[in-house]
């Protein structure tokens, strides 16, 4: 079978880029990824974006970016699956190359949250939930996560500081990532004093919305340029599952069924066990989502995902290192760019270029991009290989 190689990677710093437009932000990442690949020229562009039509009054990003970034004429489309848009775009690129229809695919994730301020952002994000039956009740994305966290704490008797380990690890790792929004470790007592966003969710349980762009170049191993410099990283598996859109339509809202299904499917395709996973880039838009994702993947039984954080198992030297370059919490949540950031970061890990955040001898990286409360779950497994 054809191996799909992540030949080039590029990313911008995640943050508030008031002075950079969406198209220019994307170009920074695209230019870097093409250069990193040794100059491969894409034949197709897949854009992961969540909210540009709402936040920037800009749809039709495929042609916008192909045109603006010097690739006028190539196939170019946008892929949208809320917070999982980046992961979903990566899968489209993977399928294009894997099928043989495209030799070189460019996947770029980009989001510009700061084109709106205040209530406009919450209103835009709420459009990714069930507009007629959730958003109309004034429910926000944070509120949705809070409903899950409250129920989880009630069912499993979790103490009020039970989730502190998630932001603590994320921020500690973010300190070693030059592209992270927050590059400073935090102390446990800071978590306990943080302002409530939607009880029981406090400020440190929420990943910050921010601007960012990340890009990868995908190709087949036989098409790599002569003298290709990097250790080879391939996409060993790709899987997507969907659950109900609305949280209230689920029999077991705490189950994160789609997250579990997509991890199981990806592991099956890659032919690996959970024990072989060297690190897990989960979608920690909220601490509770990190806990539920760990459980869904099988790293912890139901009701015990939070303990992995409390006991240090998700730290760089732990049993299953997570958010190794800061995760959504410290790197920042750049909406539909997130899944592509995860692919870039996992590639950095597998190439051995993660500096202070390096997971030693990493071979398999599991990355998962969620839309809403795992309404969409996109999972990829990346593997370091030698030819």
């Amino acid at each position: 079978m054809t191996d799909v190689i992540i030949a080039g990677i590029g990313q911008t710093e995640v943050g508030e880029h008031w002075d950079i437009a969406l198209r220019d932000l994307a170009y920074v990442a695209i230019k870097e990824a093409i250069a990193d690949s040794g100059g491969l020229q894409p034949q197709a562009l897949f854009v992961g974006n969540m909210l540009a039509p709402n936040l920037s009054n800009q749809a039709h990003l495929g042609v916008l970016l192909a045109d603006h970034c010097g690739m006028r004429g190539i196939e170019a489309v946008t892929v949208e699956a809320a917070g999982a848009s980046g992961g979903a775009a990566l899968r489209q690129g993977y399928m294009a190359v894997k099928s043989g229809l495209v030799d070189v695919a460019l996947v770029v994730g980009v989001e510009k949250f700061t084109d709106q301020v205040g209530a406009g952002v919450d209103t835009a994000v709420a459009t990714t939930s069930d507009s007629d039956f959730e958003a109309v009740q004034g429910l926000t994305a944070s509120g949705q996560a809070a409903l899950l966290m409250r129920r989880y704490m009630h069912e499993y008797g979790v103490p009020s500081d039970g989730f502190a380990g998630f932001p603590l690890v994320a921020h500690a790792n973010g300190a070693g990532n030059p592209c992270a929004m927050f590059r400073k470790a935090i102390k446990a007592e800071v978590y306990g004093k943080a302002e409530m966003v939607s009880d029981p969710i406090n400020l440190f349980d929420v990943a910050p919305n921010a601007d960012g762009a990340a890009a990868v170049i995908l190709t087949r191993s036989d098409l790599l340029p002569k003298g290709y410099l990097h250790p080879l990283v391939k996409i060993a598996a790709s899987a997507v599952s969907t659950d109900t859109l609305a949280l209230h339509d689920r029999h077991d809202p705490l189950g994160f069924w789609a997250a579990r299904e997509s991890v199981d499917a990806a592991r099956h395709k890659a032919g690996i066990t959970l024990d072989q996973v060297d690190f897990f880039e989960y979608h920690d838009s909220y601490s509770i989502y990190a806990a539920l994702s760990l459980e869904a993947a099988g790293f912890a039984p139901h009701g015990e995902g939070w303990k992995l954080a409390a006991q240090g198992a998700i730290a760089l030297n732990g049993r299953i290192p997570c958010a190794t370059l800061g995760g959504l919490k410290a790197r920042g949540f750049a909406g539909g760019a997130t899944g592509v950031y995860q692919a870039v970061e996992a590639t950095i890990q597998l190439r051995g270029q993660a500096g202070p955040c390096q997971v030693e001898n990493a071979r398999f990286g599991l990355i998962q991009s969620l839309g809403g409360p795992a309404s969409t779950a996109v999972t990829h497994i990346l593997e370091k290989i030698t030819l």
Partner: protein
Amino acid sequence: MEIPRHWRLKKQRYALVGEVCPHCDYKIFPPRDVCPNCGDEAKTLYTFSGKGEVFSYTTIYEAPTGFDSTAPYTVALVKLEEGPIVTAQLTDLGDQPVEIGMPVEMVTRKMRNDGDERGVIVYGYKFRPKLG
């Protein structure tokens, strides 16, 4: 304001009209035409009692457009007697603390304004602590 979108949902918003599956008797809200239990088509209307209990709840401090005037407010997942869970605001709470398991009943209330554009108001279901 998206008047047609709200108007067409008036049965759901004002009277909790969902569906019952003619094949397996599963109660469905919001209506979805394909039964999530058995997978057959379900279009038989069914009016819910409006009685239920709090499954989970939270407070929204930073409200989306149209909800700012009522923030902070409480949003809950309410498990209806007939089975389904709905997302809804809790109202008429007074000083009463909210708890998981608290019995509640449906009432009709103002849900949001139009973000001060044309003054149109959306009404619909909220839940209050059960009386009596």
